[in-house]
């Protein structure tokens, strides 16, 4: 009796702060510490027994493993990635999980490890041996495989949030690796569907010469073939990686790009594969023929956009901005959805046991909402998260794939990326 009067006045005194002290929450949430079944059936707090085990919060630790790598600086001053890219997404997901977790006595904590590949794998392995079951990786494909090998045999799951490498989902798939980052195939397919819907079927493909550029170009070729576009011409843009910044610049670009893009058979759209971001931003509005640009620059396919406001996206953007003081980038979203998936599994299984959570996450029952207007689920044959892909300008998401009219026997989302019958993955299993 007295405690509820105190709590009522505490609620009123705390009007300005949305968060009550943890003690008060624990006190008035007493019924929730009782073994509640999946229906959340409550029991009378004054007569029910509470064991000390049930009073303790279940703890789930999630590791964010960031590989420190050298990357050439982006072409635009606006595109330097923030230092906490990915980390901010993780922090938001932990906060969201904990808001739910306080109703279920579950507590999520984040452990960020940033290191070069070898050291990263060693430190993650140490934590996993100590019981951590979840590793969200922002790492190169080989490092993801090394993490997978280091955690082999343990109840641990690696979430690939940073690499679009198709081989990681195909011949290099692993039982203990799932993917929240979209694959290059998914991105290229998303773009191709829109370009074909627009009837821009004749493509001029321009690509860089770095391995990542070539991989993206390969994905575009596959997508063109898949959806009925024709690559009428292909050219490699060879450049000298000189100084990014000089006091001049546009005079030569204005000469070089038109020359580079002239004498091309009739085409509708220039598709560009410049993942290294070394020249692609120069292409729009500089081409010999007046044509739209799409690919890694121009109209870009990605898992997220900081201006997406549909499907309640405003709420995500708003929470992210408050936490990180900057807009959310695709990597932040990929990391967020990985950690939210763990939270969702923990909510549904009422467990913190990695083995149980991993089994649930990979099962047909699992789904997670990700502000994209439909359920997101992991593909049963390779652990890739199925998701709508946004096609955007730097300012706005313009359209979302899969495009209307592209049908599929089981899920339209599977028109993006490598589908089950084509899959080369033999090492993944739910």
């Amino acid at each position, binding site marked *: 009796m007295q405690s509820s009067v105190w709590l009522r006045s505490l609620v009123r005194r705390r*009007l300005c702060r949305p968060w009550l002290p943890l003690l008060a929450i624990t006190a008035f949430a007493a019924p929730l510490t009782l073994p509640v079944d999946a229906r959340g*059936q409550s029991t009378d707090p004054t007569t029910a027994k509470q064991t000390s085990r049930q009073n303790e919060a279940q703890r789930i630790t999630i590791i964010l493993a960031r590989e420190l790598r050298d990357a050439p600086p982006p072409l635009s001053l606006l595109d330097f990635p923030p230092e906490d890219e990915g980390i901010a997404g993780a922090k938001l997901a932990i906060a*969201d999980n904990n*808001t739910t977790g306080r*109703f279920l006595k579950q507590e999520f904590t984040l452990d960020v490890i940033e290191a070069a590949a070898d050291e990263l794998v060693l430190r993650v392995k140490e934590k996993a041996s100590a019981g951590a079951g979840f590793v969200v990786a922002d790492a190169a494909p080989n490092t993801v495989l090394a993490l997978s090998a280091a955690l082999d045999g343990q109840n641990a799951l690696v979430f690939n949030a940073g690499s679009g490498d198709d081989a990681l989902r195909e011949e290099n798939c692993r039982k203990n690796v799932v993917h929240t980052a979209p694959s290059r195939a998914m991105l290229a397919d998303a773009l191709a569907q829109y370009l074909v819907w627009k009837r821009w079927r004749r493509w001029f493909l321009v690509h860089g010469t770095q391995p990542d550029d070539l991989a993206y170009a390969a994905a575009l070729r596959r997508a063109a073939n898949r959806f009925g576009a024709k690559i009428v011409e292909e050219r490699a843009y060879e450049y000298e990686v000189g100084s990014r910044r000089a006091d001049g610049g546009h005079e030569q670009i204005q000469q070089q790009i038109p020359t580079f893009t002239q004498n091309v058979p009739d085409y509708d759209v220039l598709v560009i594969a410049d993942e290294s971001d070394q020249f692609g931003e120069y292409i729009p509005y500089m081409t010999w023929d007046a044509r739209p640009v799409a690919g890694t620059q121009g109209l870009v396919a990605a898992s997220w956009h900081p201006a997406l406001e549909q499907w309640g996206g405003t*709420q995500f953007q*708003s929470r992210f901005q408050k936490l990180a003081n900057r807009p959310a980038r695709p990597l932040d979203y990929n990391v967020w959805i990985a950690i939210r998936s763990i939270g969702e599994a923990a909510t549904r299984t009422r467990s913190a046991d990695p083995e149980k959570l991993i089994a649930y996450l990979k099962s047909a029952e699992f789904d997670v909402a990700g502000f994209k207007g*439909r359920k997101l689920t992991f593909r049963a044959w390779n652990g890739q998260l199925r998701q709508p892909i946004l096609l955007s300008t730097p300012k706005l998401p313009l359209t979302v794939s899969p495009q209307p009219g592209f049908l599929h026997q089981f899920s339209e989302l599977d028109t993006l990326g490598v589908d089950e019958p084509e899959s080369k993955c033999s090492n993944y299993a739910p």
Partner: protein
Amino acid sequence: MSRIGTALSISLAAGSILFAPQISAQTVFVTNEKDNTVTVIDGDTLEAVKTVKVGQRPRGVTLSKDEKWLLICASDDNTVQVYDARTMEFVKSLPSGPDPELFILHPSGNPLYIANEDDNLVTVVDIEKGTVLAEIPVGVEPEGMGISPDGKLLVNTSETTNMAHFIDTATNEIIDNVLVDSRPRFAEFTKDGRQVWVSAEIGGTVTVIQPETREILAKITFSIPGIVQDAIQPVGVRVTKDGKRAFVALGPANRVAVVNAETFEVEKYLLVGQRVWQLAFSPDERLLFTTNGASNDVSVIDTEKLRVLRSIKVGRYPWGVAVASF
């Protein structure tokens, strides 16, 4: 009186209404999320008669118990606006907490319980005095608000936490939480107070919960030939006063499901406009009005014949709907 006479003669002359309505005065208010307006529809002629500029991003809308006031959640203004329901003149603003999305009045007429979508809160406001009585921390992205007919139990749903929170209105404390399917959007008590219906937009289901015991009585699923399952996204739910039938708005499936509220079986699907979200009965429950966000119109359903009578063009992205008995 003369307005009714005019309405009758118009309908007889034009012959555009498919049935002869029983003359019961009613006015329908629709918030247009993108236009920042409210469309006022004459419930007898079923024509839009007025468009009124209101606050920014108007969403939830409700009438005060005496129907003197129309209350609107002006989400981007972070306020609840109060208008004279008959003249649509602005009366006052109420504090609401940030980003109010949906709200519900205590059956006695006061206070108002508001879901603050952006801040994981329910704010309790005295609508006469214009004061905040309490803030209740809930899950992530609260939206749905239901209240028991005796006013003792408030149910709020959190979209990302996926729970229906049961709140004791005497203490303003959460007494229990029921996990539902993904992205719950709406909570509706039956008139006898024995059930609360909770829709899950992404999960694609409606869960019926016993409010006293929090036992799950049923989980209703939907299946429409020719429509992908992912497009079936339940949002608004309304149950008739006699507890026999429920209507569920199914979002981008563009249909309203008619559910037998005793057996929980779906009887029929009614095709309305695009992205149907919210529903409201006429006072006699013979008509049901639906807001079709993506086609900018409101559908009118005859609840006895289970037919869609017509669509009424309103503003852009109609969201909330409320019906007055005048």
